[in-house]
């Protein structure tokens, strides 16, 4: 009997006009399209330079900036007003102003007293882009100044040469960082919420009533419903990992067993949450809206797209209740750092904790409504 219940779910799943296509398409989108779209690296910063010094040195500085590869130089000899106008209209991201006295400053043998006659103005409508553009320009200018100071500043200013080494993702490859996170999103969307919609639609069509007058236990019926979605989740996870390896050469550094365990745990949490929603919804449309509302919160507050560390404290507190946070955290740790369950167990514990809570609530409310 169980076998036939599962078989029926698979049949219905495969006969759905959209589902099989979506399941096949998703891994390709996740690996081949989304990592590029969610890229946060800033390139092609538009730059306008205003030169009031008109010296060899100022020209050299401008050349250095232009050849750094970070900027798309729009104008090298703009009038201050026109440069400002460009920024006001949002046509440029940064303005570099070199005041007269720049070459004197460099030749000053006293060793760089006073302020540097260079101005940096950054358009921060897009905060991330602006701050990164500012950093790039700063790096260029300070580099140029320390290279070209006539007086040896080494004695005057003992400097520290801080060189960073990036662990786990040495080239700061954003794609590598995003792929495990995007897998988490995909699993949540395809396998977390769809079983709930499936149950609500059976409720809506009245077919669940016909099942309820048979000797089939409700729990068995729902458990069988989950089977195809668990299968789909594993299919997607492993297709994504395979594609990531074939296309980008990224391989998972941690244990596949841990991925299997976390995926299952996450599906159970999301499915029990979905079941909870389905208990309180009369039709699929209602359930869709509720699920859509929560999935927005889950995704944006999961740390997949923006780091949780940079959220304000109250937002951080909310993320503790978000199962996606733990799954995403664990997946990144496994994929990038090569962790296993032993290193990530707090994530698993939290995931299972939330899961048992929602599951209990879901089962209790299910019994009540039935």
């Amino acid at each position, binding site marked *: *009997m169980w076998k*036939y*219940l599962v078989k*029926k779910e698979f*049949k*219905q799943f495969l*006969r*759905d006009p959209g589902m099989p296509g979506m399941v096949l398409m998703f891994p390709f989108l996740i690996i081949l399209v989304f990592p590029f779209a969610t890229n946060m690296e800033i390139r092609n910063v538009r730059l306008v330079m205003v030169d009031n010094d008109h010296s060899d040195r100022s020209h050299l500085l401008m050349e250095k900036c232009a050849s750094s590869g970070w900027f798309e130089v729009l104008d090298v000899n703009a009038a201050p007003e026109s440069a400002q106008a460009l920024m006001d209209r949002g046509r440029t991201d940064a303005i570099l102003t070199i005041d007269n006295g720049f070459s004197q400053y460099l030749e000053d043998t006293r060793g760089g007293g006073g302020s540097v006659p260079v101005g940096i103005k950054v358009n921060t409508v897009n905060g991330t882009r602006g701050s990164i553009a500012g950093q790039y320009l700063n790096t260029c200018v300070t580099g140029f100044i320390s290279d070209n100071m006539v007086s040896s500043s080494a004695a005057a200013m003992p400097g520290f040469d801080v060189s960073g080494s990036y662990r786990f993702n040495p080239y700061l490859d954003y794609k590598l960082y995003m792929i495990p996170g995007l897998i988490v999103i995909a699993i949540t969307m395809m396998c977390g919420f769809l079983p709930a919609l499936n149950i609500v639609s059976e409720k809506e*069509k*009245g*077919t669940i*009533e*016909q*099942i*309820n*007058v*048979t*000797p*089939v236990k409700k729990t068995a019926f729902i458990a069988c419903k989950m089977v195809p979605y668990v299968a789909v989740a594993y299919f997607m996870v492993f297709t994504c990992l395979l594609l990531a390896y074939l296309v980008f050469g990224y391989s998972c550094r941690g244990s596949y067993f841990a991925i299997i365990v976390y995926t299952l745990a996450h599906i159970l949490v999301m499915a029990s949450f979905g079941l909870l929603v389905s208990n309180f919804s009369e039709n699929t449309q209602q359930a869709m809206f509720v699920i859509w509302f929560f999935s927005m919160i889950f995704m944006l507050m999961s740390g997949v797209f923006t780091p949780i560390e940079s959220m304000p404290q109250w937002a951080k507190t909310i993320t503790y209740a978000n199962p996606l946070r733990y799954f995403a955290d664990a997946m990144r740790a496994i994929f990038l750092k090569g962790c296993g369950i032993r290193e990530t167990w707090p994530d698993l514990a939290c995931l299972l904790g939330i899961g048992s809570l929602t599951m209990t609530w879901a089962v209790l409310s299910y019994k009540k409504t039935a």
Partner: protein
Amino acid sequence: MGNGAIEILGVSKSYGKTLALDNVSLEISKGEIFGLIGPDGAGKTSLFRILTTLTLPDAGTATVGGRDVVRDYSAIRCSIGYMPGHFALYQDLSVEENLKFYATVFGTTIEENYDTIRDIYSQIEMFRDRRARDLSGGMKQKLALCCALVHKPSVLFLDEPTTGVDAVSRREFWAMLGRIRESGVTIMVSTPYMDEAGLCDRIALILGGRIIGTGTPEEIVSGYPERLYAARGGNMFGILKVLRGVEGVTRCSSFGCECHVSVPEGGPDEKVLLRALAEAGMTGCSVEPIKAGIEDCFMSLS
């Protein structure tokens, strides 16, 4: 209580403030077709849902096949067939897959119980690979009946099986019910159509959650307490208005192209009624005594 197939004793059910069933008691014998007749919203489906163990009664007890609907619900589920008012099979599974599915969940196979369903299934077997959603209304109904019968239930519950079905299919359907009954299955069927009442062995009239009459259709009809006349004529609305004004008429309501006038013993007879019509200037009318139908009984009981 006797050894009825279904016994209902003082069952009440309310949804919030709406009282759906009010102290309903019924006894249905083995092997009969029992009709539950009443308009929409009378409580038919609520009673069915209690008997099929889908909802719990607020008060009262009910047994199906001698088993209590609350305590022995799982045993009942194995021995009844239920066909809800709407088509509740899987639209995206084929005819055969649906039937096989329901056979399997009841722990049986199509082959094992083929005798029970052969009569009906043979009519749709040629479409066995067609998806249920692509079947016509009548075919869907036959498939649903097959699925409800595939595990050889001892009691069959049919909730408004003929609502929205054409006249020919309805007659066919009732003929099928007759044949199912011959195999010893008790059938409880609900319908809003009064003309189908005569096809049942026994009926109960239900209105506003109360049973307002039970018995064989003949008993119900012969229990009509008054004399009944049918008035015909050109101006139906005029006739209705005039006859309602005649002293001694208890009730006058339109039935299709005629007007049924209910008069107590010793009240005005057809001549009086005809004269009243003539006095009101309505000519070419006829009034004649008729036998009461189920619908008339329903009107008099409600």
